[in-house]
């Protein structure tokens, strides 16, 4: 149950956070948070409102610089910068939707593959054949992802015209376009109906096995049914501290967790 304190061996792989602390002025948003996300695992991060979940994601993405602690990816020191994340094998979906409203759906997904685009400035300026070739390849790749998520029919539409659930799938497709080895999902079920959450659960469970990448997933989510059913392990944050870590069953049975949710039933607190 206690967070790992020893040196994670490089063979473990994946993302590892050690003793992460974040302060906003006098407010302690995170303190001494250590956790590990191994390849192929679906790791949940839960906690009451304001517990520091999104802040934790922001630390991993380089939007927030921690005042203490360090991170490693596959055993190597990791200093994240947002626009380098995809190159480091990490992709994130945003709380809400976060699509580009002025780009078509397929362009949104193509934008997600920016990291592998190689066309140089002058090739673009002169419309050299290589630029067209790459665009065609990226478009096909994006269409494949959209088809995989069952939203290929909307490829030419603009996101704002589409149902919320469809947009959330497109956001996942855009993240997948970066071919990540670690996916960070920030409240992917937020605003979805029961059926859509069911499908989302299946989708998340399928991510590690997808394309032989052995992708890891870090899931921040308030919807407890979903978290309990898809996660291999769960970390519980409360007031910026990690108060519990374990399998869904272990976490559910942990009195500290129940206390953090104000003594209420865990499933109730989720709603």
């Amino acid at each position, binding site marked *: 149950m206690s967070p790992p304190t020893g040196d994670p061996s490089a063979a473990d792989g994946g993302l590892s956070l050690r003793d992460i602390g974040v302060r906003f002025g006098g407010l302690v948003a995170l303190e001494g948070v250590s956790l590990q996300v191994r390849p192929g695992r679906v790791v949940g991060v839960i906690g009451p409102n304001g517990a520091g979940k999104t802040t934790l994601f922001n630390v991993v*993405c380089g*939007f927030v610089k921690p005042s203490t602690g360090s991170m490693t990816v596959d055993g190597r020191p990791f200093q994240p910068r*947002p*626009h*380098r*994340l*995809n*190159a480091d094998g990490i*992709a*994130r979906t*945003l709380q809400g939707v*976060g*699509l*580009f*409203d*002025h*780009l*078509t759906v*397929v*362009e949104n997904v*193509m*934008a*997600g593959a*920016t*990291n592998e*685009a190689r*066309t140089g*400035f002058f*090739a*673009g*300026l*002169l*419309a*050299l*054949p290589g*630029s*067209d070739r*790459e*665009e*065609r390849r990226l*478009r*096909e790749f994006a*269409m494949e992802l959209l088809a*995989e*998520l*069952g*939203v*290929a*029919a*909307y*490829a*030419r*539409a603009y996101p704002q015209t589409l149902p919320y659930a469809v947009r959330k799938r497109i956001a996942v497709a*855009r993240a997948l376009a*970066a071919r990540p080895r670690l996916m960070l999902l920030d409240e992917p079920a937020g605003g979805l109906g029961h*059926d859509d959450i069911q*499908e989302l659960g*299946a*989708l998340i469970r*399928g991510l590690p096995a997808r394309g032989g990448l052995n992708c890891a997933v870090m899931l921040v989510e308030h919807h407890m049914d979903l978290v309990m059913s898809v996660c291999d392990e769960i970390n519980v944050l409360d007031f910026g501290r990690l108060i519990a870590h374990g399998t869904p069953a272990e976490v559910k049975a942990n009195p500290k967790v129940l206390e953090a949710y104000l003594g209420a039933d865990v499933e109730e607190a989720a709603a």
Partner: protein
Amino acid sequence: MTATEEVENTRTQGATTLARASTVRGGAFGRTLVRHAVYALVAIVVLIVLTSALAGTGNTFLNYQLAMVCAYLCATAGLTFLTGINGQLSLGHGALMATGAYGAALTIRALADRGIEAVWAVFVALLVGVLAALVVGAVIGAAAARLRGPYLAGVTTVIAIVVPAITTTFDGIFKGDQGLSFVTPSPGAVPALLSNEEWQAYLGIGCAVLVMFLLANLISSRFGRQFRAVANDEVAAKLSGINIARTQVLAFVVSAGCAGLGGALMAAITQQAAPGAYSLTLSLYLLMAIVIGGLGSLAGAVWGALLLVALPDLSTRITDSLELSPDLAQKLDGNLALAIFGLFLIIVMIVAPGGIQGLVRRLSGRLSARRRSAGS
């Protein structure tokens, strides 16, 4: 996953008309280069025909105006690319045009001092004008990449005021308020065949078509997508692997180069570079022109460039027809043009928020829809 797909399939049946998104236009015309080159050639042919037709009227001023439209088009196209597509507001493009104009003017004069008055001197001058604007654009762009919204507008406004002021401060080089004048070399050996104004028009056409061609290429490449993504949502753009600062500086430099070419052309056409022509008002005009034309659209930049020549001309005609005292007429001339522009901007924004090009697109869409329904 099959169950999911089934659900999705039934859910998306309404959108099957959109399902052909993966089909790519085939044939040679499907290639961006071929498509844009064909458009450029057609534009050149049409404009050459127009130039000779205008020359045929005997009114040489018309070809001078055509050349000026082309010079403005370089700048409006560059600005609509920066502001409409990349989302960076610049009130400093008048100053960038000034940079290009002075770069070109100094080059032509320096070459003339050495006895070089061949036609190629003009091309060298245009090139120097562009390079000067690229350098200034890179400096402003680097600062601009750290600024947003009102701060960016503020800094670029300062640039718009400072650059003309520099020309009056260092009047040893720039000759102060009265500016640099010179004779633009022209292929004058055959003046009977090619008037000076026709030559200017051809020069303008060449430059404007080149700018439109290159910008159209860039916009339809992956860079166009990145420019738009950055304008749309910076956090999402970063998370998509886009380097925001680099993208913004790139857009600013490209846009500055276009404005520089526009300014250099204007200098070559008017045979002078003087600070009065490149005041803050010019920057405002450029901005109004691209909004009226249709922000972010290259075709809209064409409308804007046309208006930049047509509306001041209209205001001159109005003041001329009013038979005012010369003093009042002069005062009115400059301000009336701005007032007409402002009025036009307000009207267009009410009638067509997408600008003239948005209106054109809507009308042509309605027309083709009617034709389709009539055909079936």
